[in-house]
C-alpha cells in the first residue's frame, strides 16, 4: 500500500508541477450560501416549523398532542431513548408502549422511534442527529415514524452555521424530512428505507 501511495503522490506532484497559474483559495463571507428566505429576520422556532412542514415533516411542541396523533395513526408501540422514557410515558398520555431497548430481530415491531436531536436547522427544517445524542442510530432510522426531541435553544439559523457547529462527534447527520425517492417515473414516494414520517418534538427536555 505504501508503494501505491508513493506512486500516486509522485504522479500528482508531476501533474501539478506543470501547472503555471495555480488558483488561490478564494476568501468569501460565511453567509454566502444562506438562502434569501433565511436572511429575513424571524423567530427560529417558527421558521424551523415552517421549513419542516415544507418538506412534509411535522412539528409538535406539546407531547400530549403528539401522543394523540400517534394513537390516531394507530402507532402505539415504539422505541424510546431510555433517558426520555419516564418523562414521555406520562407526557405522551395513555395507550402507548415505549420500549427502551431496540431488538434488531424484531425491528418491524417498532412503529415509532423517539430519540434526541442535538439541534436543528431553521433554514431547511433539518434535524441534527449525532452519535452522542442519539441513543441508537437504528431507533431513529428504522421505524416508520421518527420523533426527534429537540430543544428550542438548539435551533440554528442555516446550513452554514450548522456546519460550523459540527464539533467533534464522528457521525453527524442532517435529516430533512421523511425518506423519499422519485426513482420510479419521477413519482415521489415517501418512506423508502428511512422513516416515512419525520416528526420534531420541540421541547426543553430535548437538551441532554
Amino acid at each position, binding site marked *: 500500500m505504501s508503494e501505491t501511495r508513493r506512486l500516486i503522490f509522485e504522479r*500528482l506532484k508531476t501533474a501539478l508541477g506543470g501547472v503555471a497559474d*495555480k488558483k488561490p483559495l478564494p476568501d468569501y463571507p460565511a453567509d454566502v450560501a444562506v438562502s434569501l428566505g433565511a436572511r429575513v429576520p424571524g423567530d427560529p422556532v417558527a421558521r424551523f416549523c415552517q421549513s419542516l412542514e415544507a418538506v412534509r415533516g411535522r412539528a409538535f411542541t406539546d407531547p400530549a398532542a403528539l401522543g394523540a396523533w400517534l394513537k390516531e395513526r394507530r402507532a402505539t408501540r415504539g422505541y424510546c431513548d431510555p433517558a426520555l422514557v419516564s418523562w414521555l410515558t406520562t407526557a405522551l398520555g395513555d395507550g402507548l408502549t415505549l420500549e427502551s431497548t431496540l431488538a434488531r430481530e424484531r425491528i418491524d415491531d417498532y412503529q415509532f422511534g423517539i430519540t434526541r436531536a442535538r439541534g436543528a436547522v431553521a433554514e431547511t427544517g433539518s434535524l441534527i442527529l449525532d452519535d452522542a445524542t442519539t441513543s441508537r442510530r437504528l431507533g431513529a432510522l428504522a421505524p416508520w415514524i421518527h420523533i426527534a426531541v429537540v430543544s428550542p435553544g438548539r435551533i440554528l439559523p442555516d446550513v452554514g452555521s450548522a456546519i460550523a457547529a459540527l464539533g467533534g462527534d*464522528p*457521525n453527524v447527520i442532517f435529516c430533512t424530512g421523511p*425518506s423519499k*425517492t422519485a426513482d420510479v417515473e419521477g413519482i415521489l414516494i415517501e418512506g423508502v428505507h428511512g422513516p416515512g414520517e419525520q416528526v420534531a418534538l420541540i421541547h426543553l427536555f430535548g437538551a441532554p
Partner: protein
Amino acid sequence: MSRPEEPIDRFAAAQSESRRSAVRLGSKAGHEKRTEVLFRDYADPDSLRRLAGEIKQHTLDHLDLYLERAQARLEANGAKVHFAADAEEACRTVLGILQGRGAQRVVKTKSMATEEIELGAFLERHGVESLETDLGEFIVQLDADKPSHIVKPIMHKDRREVARTFEGHGLGAYDDTPEVITRRAREHLRRKYLEADAGITGANFVSAESGRLVLVTNEGNSRFCLAATRCHIAVVGIEKLVPRDRDLGLFLNLLARSATGQSLSVYTEFIAGPRGAGQPDGPEEMHVIFLDGGRSEILAGDAREILRCIRCGACLNVCPVYRQASGHAYRGVYSGPVGAVLTPLLAGERFPEFADLPRASSLCGACNEVCPVDIPIPDLLLRLRDRGKRAGVKPAGAAPSMKTFARLASRPAAWRRALRAGRLLGLLPGPLRPRALRVWESNHVLPPWRGGAFRAWMAERKRKQP
C-alpha cells in the same frame, strides 16, 4: 443506403420513441426544478457557481497537499486509509478487508467510483454477496441492466418494466403502483441490511480539514448501510476533496439544488471516523480507499477542470444531445456532457473507442451554464477533439475533411473561384455529390447557391459611391 455512423448517433436513431420521451420529460423536469429553486433562493446563483468552481480548481491545483492532510486527519480519527492506483487494486483492497473479517454479505450505496471499478461483479466472483440498496440501482441490479443517469438511474424505465422485474425475482405478484414497488423494496432490503457484514459507500465530498466524508441520499440507504453493519468501507476518488468544512456548506447548498431542486437532500451525513463511544449502532471499523483510477493522468492534461465535477447531473438534464440519445448511448459509467469528457479520458488507451463522444455536441454551452462548479465543458470537448485528431482517430460520420476547406479558405482567389463554381455541385447527380452534402440533403432542403452574388453587389455599390 448503408454507411458507417458514429456510435452515439446510431444508438439515438435506434432508440424507441417511448424511451426518448421518458428521458426528455425527466430531464426537462429536473432542469426546470433546478432553475426555479436556484433563482428563488439566491440573488446571483451564477456568482456562487463561479466561487465553487474556484474552490474546486484550487483544491485540484494543490491536490497532493490536501490529500495528505485528509489522510492524516482520518487516521487521527481512527479510520484506516488505503490508496489504490487502479480498479484492480481498489477491488483487491476491498476484498482483503472483507476477507480479514470473514465478511460474506455486503450492502452498498450508489457510488460512481464503485461502478468505475466494477466492484459488485468482482465481489460476486469472489464469493461475496453485494447488494445495491439505492432503489434505482437495486432495480438495475435485478435486471442486470446499467444505470442511464448519474442521479436517476432508472430514468429510462417505466413502472410496468419495474413491476415485471419484481415479479420475475419473487418480490410479489405483478403490481406497478409506485407505492407498492417502493414498499416491497423497503421490506426486502431491510432484512438484507440487518444480515450484512459490511457497508460499502462512496463519498460526495471529503473535507481535508476534518477528514469528514459527506454522504448524501434521499432514501436513507447509506445511513442504513452504516447503522446496521459493523464495518464501513468507502471508495473515494482522489478528486472528491474540498479544503475545509466551511466549504462544504457552499457545495451542499449547490449540490441538492442542482441535482433535484431541493435545498438539501433528505440525509446529509458527516462521517469523521468509526462510531462514537457509547453508540451501539454503526461501524466499529472504517476504511477509506482513495482511488486514482486515471485521475492523476487527467490532472496532468488539458481537460483537468473536469475533475471539479460534483456529480449533480444538472448538465445531463439540460443537454439536448443527452435528451435525444439517453444515458446508455455513452457506453460508460458517466453520461451526458460530463461523460463526453470523462469517459474517453478514463478509458486511457481505449480513448479511440469513445472519440465520438466529444464530437457529439453542437457546443451549445448549456452544460456550462448550469454547472455548479463552472466547468468549461465546451472548451474541454474542443480540446478532446483536437486530441482525437492528433491521435489519428478516423471519425465514422460524414463530417468532411478540413484539408480542402483550409486550402480554399486561406487562398482568396481560389475561394472566390469556388464561390462561383459551387453552383455546379447542385448539378451533380445524387451518388456523385460529396457525402456530407448527401447527408445534409437527407434531412434538409438546401438553400439556393448564391456564391459571388454579394461580392458583385458590394463591388457595384462601391463603384457608385464616391
